[in-house]
């Protein structure tokens, strides 16, 4: 089961600072999400958050004695939009912390930064960049989803290491933390990417119009004003 950063890894000042950043980011996301949500997409967004919660329970083995689980930021952002995606993962983290004692309450800011902000920024950002250069096909969208997700997980590990460097309560060399964190999260990223690509392709197969990040995929090239010669 999802095990996030607990209380006591990061000192109080840095945890509080992360909390302030998280609150500010979530406030921005609440504003941004209003542009992404309407009567049709709001229910899908709620279900996407529920799906991320469910998928985070499914730890998969990645190496001897080590497991990983979906973070879900890239997936949620592709399905329902980046701002709403940030909110989906944040709601999951909030419920996990308050109801399931998973993820320290003082570490909630750290967890939101790593698992909501970083994964959406990096994973969805890369997805969109790739869509610009790839052909407008479902296969290409699934590939871009895979690439975004695969990079998003080690990116979250890098940012965790940075936060640990600022406020870690123990005295472990940053190089060692970085190497170990990035190493294992490169493997977890592959699982993240498989789940993300599989889910995105499944939704694209039945309801391509509902995939926020790939809207316009099936449409012909954008309409432009053209001379009236028919």
């Amino acid at each position, binding site marked *: 089961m999802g*095990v996030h950063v*607990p*209380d006591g890894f990061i000192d109080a000042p840095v945890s509080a600072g992360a909390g302030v950043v998280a609150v500010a980011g979530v406030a921005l996301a609440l504003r941004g999400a209003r542009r992404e949500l309407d009567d049709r997409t709001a229910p899908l967004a709620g279900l996407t958050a529920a799906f991320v919660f469910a*998928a985070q329970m499914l730890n998969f083995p990645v190496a001897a004695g080590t*497991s990983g689980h979906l973070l879900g930021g890239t997936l949620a952002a592709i399905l329902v939009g980046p701002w709403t995606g940030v909110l989906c993962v944040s*709601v999951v983290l909030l419920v996990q912390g308050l*109801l399931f004692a998973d993820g320290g309450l003082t570490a909630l800011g750290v967890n939101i930064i790593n698992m909501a902000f970083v994964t959406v920024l990096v994973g969805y950002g890369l997805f969109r960049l790739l869509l610009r250069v790839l052909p407008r096909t479902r296969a290409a969208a699934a590939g871009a989803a895979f690439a975004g997700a695969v990079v998003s997980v080690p990116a979250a590990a890098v940012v965790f290491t940075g936060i640990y460097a600022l406020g870690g309560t*123990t005295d472990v060399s940053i190089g060692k933390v970085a190497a170990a*964190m990035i190493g294992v999260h490169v493997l*977890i990223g592959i699982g993240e990417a498989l789940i993300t690509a599989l889910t995105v392709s499944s939704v694209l197969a039945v309801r391509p119009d509902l995939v926020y990040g790939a809207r316009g995929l099936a449409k012909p090239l954008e309409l432009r004003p053209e001379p009236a010669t028919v």
Partner: protein
Amino acid sequence: MKNKRFLVVFLLVSLALAGVVSYYASSSPDGLEKVAADKGISAKEKDHSLKDSPFADYGVKGVGNGRLSGGLAGIAGVGVVLLVGGGAFWLLRRRAPARDA
């Protein structure tokens, strides 16, 4: 697939994953936990302040059967996330159809 049917299938998949499939999830420590234990990051880890809550650690307190306890906790979690998230998204939504929907 019709909108309503799609949403129902999406919900059922989540409930099945959280309620049934989660029992078969790996119980090994996850990447962060493993690195923290191996490298000593977790030396000053504190217990969760809500570790005695009824759903702590994805189980239902008082339910002895692991499969049932975990499954019920998972289903409860899906429900609560859907309620909190879906509720917030419903309140945030624009009342007119999206521009490029």
